[in-house]
C-alpha cells in the first residue's frame, strides 16, 4: 500500500538516446495506472526504472514516501510480472512462488500460508507441484501473478503481461487482473501497447509518446477529450479520423462543406471525428466516396474518401450501401487540433443551423 511519485524522471542511454524525458506523475495509493503508447515510447523503460532494473538518469522516484533511486529492486517493496512470465523453469510452481520469500528469510510456515492463500485466489492448487513447462500460457501467467502476490508488495508492476496470450484468454485474464488488484487494494503500474487493455483496466491512463507524457486522465476523459492528435489517433478503434480543415469567416470548412460556427481567425486546423460519431444523412453533409467495407458482424466499418482525404465510419450492419454516402456529425463530436503542433485547440464548434434559424 503506497503512493508512487515520479518527479522529472528522465533516462538517457549510454549512446545518448533519450528514452524518457522529464516525466512527472503521482500515483495514489491503490490506484491502477496504465502506461500506454506505441513501441519505443519509453513506457517499459519508465516501468523498469520504477522497478530498479534500469538506472535513473535524472529525477527521483518515490515509493511509499521513500526515495528509491539508489535501492536494489528487492529493497523497493515492489513485485513485477513480466511479459514472458520469467518463471524459473527448474522449480515447481510452489517453489517459484516461495523462492523470493525464502531469500527474504521469511519463516517457513508464513511462506506456506502465503503460497496457500495466493494459490486459492488464483485457483492454482492442482498445479502447485508441477513445473512451468507443464502449464499452459494462462496458467503460467497466473503463477507469475502468484509470485507477485505472495510478496505482499507496496506496488505491482506489470510489463505487458498479457501480450503472449491468445486473444480470448487475454480478455479473461484482463478481468481477473482488475478484480484481483481491486481486492488487494495494491497500487499498480501496468504497461501495455494495447489501447483496449489500457481503457478497460485503468483508473487513469498515461499516454506516452517519444518518452514524454502526452496526456494523463481517466480512460473516458482521454477518449472524449484527447489532448493531441497523437492521443486521438492512438486511443479508440478504429482510430479517430484526422482531416485537414479550415476555419474561415467564423465557420469550420471541410471539403467545401460548412460544419458549424467556430471562433477564431482564418487558419488551417486538423479536424478529428470518431468513426462512431458520424451519422448517415439523407442528403447534404459530407460526401463520402466508399472504398472498402469491413464487415465485423455486429457492425461494419466503411472506409472511403472525403475530397481525397481518407475517412472511416462505423455503421450498423444492414442494407447495401450506395457508392456515395452523406455524413453528418454533432458539433460536440468535432475535435479541433492545431494543424502544426497537433495540440488540442480551445475552441469548440457550434451548430450553424441555429444562426440561420
Amino acid at each position, binding site marked *: 500500500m503506497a503512493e508512487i511519485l515520479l518527479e522529472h524522471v528522465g533516462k538517457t542511454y549510454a549512446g545518448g538516446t533519450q528514452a524518457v524525458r522529464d516525466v512527472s506523475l503521482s500515483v495514489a495509493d491503490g490506484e491502477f495506472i496504465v502506461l500506454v503508447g506505441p513501441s519505443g515510447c519509453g513506457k517499459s523503460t519508465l516501468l523498469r526504472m520504477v522497478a530498479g*532494473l534500469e538506472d535513473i538518469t535524472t529525477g527521483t522516484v518515490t515509493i511509499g514516501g521513500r526515495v528509491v533511486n539508489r535501492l*536494489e529492486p528487492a529493497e523497493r517493496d515492489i513485485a*513485477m510480472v513480466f511479459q514472458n512470465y*520469467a518463471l*524459473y523453469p*527448474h522449480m515447481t510452481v510452489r517453489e517459484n512462488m516461495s523462492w*523470493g520469500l525464502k*531469500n527474504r528469510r521469511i519463516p517457513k510456515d508464513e511462506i506456506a500460508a502465503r503460497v496457500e492463500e495466493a494459490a486459492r485466489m488464483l485457483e492454482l492448487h492442482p498445479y502447485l507441484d508441477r513445473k512451468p513447462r507443464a502449464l499452459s500460457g494462462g496458467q503460467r501467467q497466473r503463477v507469475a501473478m502468484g509470485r507477485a502476490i505472495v510478496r505482499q508488495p507496496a506496488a505491482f508492476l506489470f510489463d505487458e503481461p498479457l501480450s503472449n496470450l491468445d486473444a480470448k484468454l487475454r480478455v479473461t485474464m484482463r478481468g481477473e487482473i482488475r478484480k484481483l488488484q481491486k481486492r488487494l487494494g495494491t497500487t499498480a503500474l501496468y504497461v501495455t501497447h494495447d489501447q483496449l487493455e489500457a481503457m478497460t483496466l485503468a483508473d487513469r491512463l498515461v499516454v506516452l509518446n517519444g518518452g514524454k507524457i502526452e496526456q494523463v486522465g481517466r480512460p473516458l476523459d482521454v477518449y472524449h477529450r484527447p489532448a493531441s492528435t497523437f492521443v486521438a489517433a492512438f486511443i479508440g478503434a478504429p482510430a479517430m479520423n484526422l482531416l485537414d480543415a479550415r476555419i474561415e469567416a467564423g465557420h469550420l470548412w471541410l471539403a467545401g462543406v460548412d460544419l458549424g460556427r467556430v471562433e477564431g481567425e482564418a487558419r488551417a486546423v486538423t479536424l478529428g471525428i470518431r468513426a462512431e460519431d458520424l451519422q448517415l444523412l439523407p442528403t447534404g453533409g459530407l460526401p463520402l466516396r466508399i472504398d472498402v467495407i469491413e464487415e465485423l458482424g455486429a457492425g461494419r466499418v466503411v472506409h472511403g474518401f472525403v475530397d481525397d482525404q481518407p475517412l472511416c465510419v462505423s455503421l450498423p450492419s444492414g442494407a447495401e450501401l450506395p457508392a456515395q454516402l452523406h455524413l453528418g456529425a454533432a458539433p460536440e463530436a468535432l475535435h479541433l487540433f492545431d494543424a502544426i503542433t497537433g495540440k488540442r485547440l480551445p475552441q469548440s464548434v457550434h451548430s450553424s443551423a441555429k444562426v440561420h434559424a
Partner: protein
Amino acid sequence: MRRFRPFDHLILLLGAAFLMTPVVMAFMSSTHAATEIHMNGLFLTPGTEGLATYEKVLTQKGGFTGTVTGTRMVMNSTILGLGFALGKVVVSMLAAYGLVYFRFRFATPIFWIIFTTLLLPLEVRIMPSYQVMSTLGALNTYWGLIIPLLASATGTFYFRQFFKSVPDELLEAARIDGAGPVRFFLGVLVPLSRPMMAAIFIIMFVYGWNQYLWPMLMTTDERFFTLMRGIKTILQVWIGSQVPDYNEAFALAVLAMLPPLGVVLAFQRLFIKGLTESDK
C-alpha cells in the same frame, strides 16, 4: 508409419560392424596368450587365457620399481579424468558467469583472448607449463597434474553461449526476488545448466582420461602411472627374444575403455540434450 527398409538397416549394421570390430578384436585378442598373438596375429574368437590375463594385469606389480599395479593405474586415470572434468566444469562456468553477467571493461576482448587459446593446444605451451609447475614443486603430485590443464576455452565458450541464451527476465525476476549474484548462480543458473554441465563433463572426462604426454612429463614416480602409460610400457620391452605381452596391452586397453563408456552411458540423455536442445 515408416516402412521397414532393409537397405537402411544394412547400412547401419555395416557401420556398427565397422566401428565395433576393432574393439571386439582387442577384447578377443586379450584372452589369448602373447606368443599366440605374436605368431598368428589378432583374433576374433575367444581364447582361454582371459581370466588369468585380466587378473595379472590388475594385480601384478609391474613397472621399473615393481610397485604399480593395473588397479593403481585405473585409479590414477580416474583421478585425472574426474579432476579434469569437475575442475573444468567449475572453472569454465565461473568464468562464463563473470563474462556474461557482470559488466566490466574489456569483457569482450577478454573473452576473445580466452577463445583464441583454443588455437593453442597443450603441446605448444607444454614446456613453460612444465617449468612453472616444477618451480612450484608440483612434479609428482595429483594437483600438479590437474591444475595446469583446468582452464578451458571450450568449456568457457559453451557456457558463455548457454548463459547468453538464458532470458534476461530470469535475472531480473531473481533480482526482484532478492537474490544476489551467488544465489542467482547457485539457485537458477546451475540447475538450468545441468544438461550443459553433463556434456562438458563427458567431453572433459574423456580428454583427461586419455592424457598421455602431460602425465608422462609431470610424473617420474611410478605411483602416478596412468593406464595410457601402462599400455605403452608393456609394449616397450623389445629386449632380445622377449615377446611383448600383447594380451596384457589389449587387456589394459579394454579396461581403459570402460570408464569413459560408463560415463557416456550414464550421462547420455543429458549429453544429447545439452548439445542440441535449449530448454528454457
